[in-house]
């Protein structure tokens, strides 16, 4: 599912006057791509996500999903069957007696047959690596934080969205939980779902994204491929956002005089580049003698 933001602004009025939560943001996300969104609290991320799923409509500009403008009320009806969103700490939305019931909430709202709902629940639990026999009949409130998170995300995926929006899905998880969830998201995206991912982990953004959008005070600070965006490492550091570890490490090595390429974003790419350099030098040494 393609997603186009065309000069989108969002203004709301508070008791302190009008506030521009988002000004003139444009980007294009093609079908199957992953957009990484970076920005501090209050940068407009949350507004951006709510505009994508039709919870808010733009004050100016247009949000177009597969050719359909979301400012049209008819288009927004039943949008939840196409666009799935997991806000921060989605486990706070759990409410049912059993995990299976909770995951079935969206498919049931879509008025699918009980048979189809059952299939969707099993499928979503499989994606989120929750064993059906073990978990389906349990109460979501007996689970650990990490398990609750996965149940909540399964509840979003059960609607089989063509556009999946995730707001810091790994926030508050332990390292192994973060790693596992990131792998699941990566796999799910690679299976063909257009994805929007908000994350504070520059490593994940660099590794997973096709396009990266950096927001600052409601404006687009940077937008482009990960290599383009992270080439502005100085400015990103000034914004207290930072760059991927691999990029920092590569920059340090380059300062020491190693001739590395400029756009190293992932640890794998960095390792390959260092290995290539090593082989090159070895070859040179051999030739020299």
């Amino acid at each position: 599912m393609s997603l186009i933001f065309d000069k989108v602004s969002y203004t709301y009025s508070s008791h302190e006057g009008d506030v521009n939560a988002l000004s003139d943001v444009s980007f294009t996300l093609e079908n199957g791509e992953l957009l990484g969104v970076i920005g501090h609290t209050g940068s407009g991320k949350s507004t951006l996500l709510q505009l994508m799923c039709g919870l808010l409509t733009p004050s100016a500009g247009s949000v177009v999903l597969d050719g359909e403008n979301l400012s049209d009320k008819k288009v927004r009806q039943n949008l939840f069957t196409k666009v799935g969103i997991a806000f921060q700490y989605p486990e706070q939305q759990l409410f049912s007696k059993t995990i299976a019931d909770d995951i079935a909430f969206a498919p049931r709202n879509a008025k699918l047959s009980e048979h189809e709902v059952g299939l969707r629940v099993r499928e979503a639990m499989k994606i989120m690596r929750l064993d059906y026999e073990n978990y389906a009949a349990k109460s979501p409130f007996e689970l650990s934080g990490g398990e609750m998170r996965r149940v909540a995300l399964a509840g979003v995926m059960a609607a089989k969205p063509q556009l999946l929006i995730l707001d810091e899905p790994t926030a508050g998880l332990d390292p192994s939980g973060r790693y596992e969830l990131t792998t699941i998201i990566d796999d799910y995206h690679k299976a063909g779902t257009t994805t929007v991912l908000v994350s504070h982990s520059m490593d994940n953004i660099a590794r997973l994204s096709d396009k990266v959008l950096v927001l600052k005070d409601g404006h687009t600070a940077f937008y482009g491929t990960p290599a383009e965006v992270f080439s502005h490492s100085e400015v990103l550091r000034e914004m207290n956002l930072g760059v991927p570890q691999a990029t920092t490490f590569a920059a340090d090595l380059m300062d020491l005089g190693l001739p590395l390429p400029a756009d190293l974003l992932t640890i794998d790419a960095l390792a390959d580049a260092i290995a290539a350099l090593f082989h090159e030098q070895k070859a040179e040494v051999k030739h020299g003698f």
Partner: protein
Amino acid sequence: MAFDIVLGQYHHAESIVHRLDPRIKITLMLILFVAAFLANSFFALLVLLLLDIVIIALSKVRPKTVVKAVAPLAFLLIFPLFFNLFFISEGTSLFSWGAILITDHGAYQAGFMTLRLFILFLTATLLTLTTSTIMLGDGISAMLRPFVRFGLPAYEISMMVSIALRFLPTLFEDFDHIRKAQMARGAVISQGGPIKRVKLLLPLLVPLFAQSLRHAEELAVAMESRCYHGGTNRTHYRVFSVGRADVIAIAICTSILILMIVWL
């Protein structure tokens, strides 16, 4: 964020009203409450309304903010308006259509009761708008202190009031958050008969309760880890003192109350 709740919330400004001793402000509110209940003419209520308006002007809180703070309570005004307007049958008829009868006496009572209730809301709102929750809590606790010897849990009461006011916006935020999350899963909020409506509310209310319990637990741990143990032997960082402005404010309000009892 987009969800803007002012109900019961403090708005900081540098004003004479903000600087008044919280004990005095609570007393003033009580005096004005009594005055509003004793008032038995429109003129008396208008005097009180005027006084509230003067307080708003002195407090430097924007009138728009005051309106927003009172607005959520407006639906409570509908009941006295409705009951007095339609259920008082004494007096001369102004309008009748089928079973509906509106009399001049009913209309007068409706207007009077609604205005009285509105003044009560406005006065209470002015207190919370100009007094921070900490000051309010300390004020209540100081005023209830004499009753501790009779077994009144004064510190606990003031702590409860401050916590409730502190968590009101959090509760609204949580509700907004949960509502959006469930709407994104296709939840329909209002549809069908009363039983169905309650069922539709469960996806909102269950997480809201769960979240509130979580907040309460976290707060309890935070308080215990800082050795909170109620009020006994507790001293205060802020020591209240009654100043000239406080005396003048009390004098004005008390004289209005006396005037109300004697003449109006």
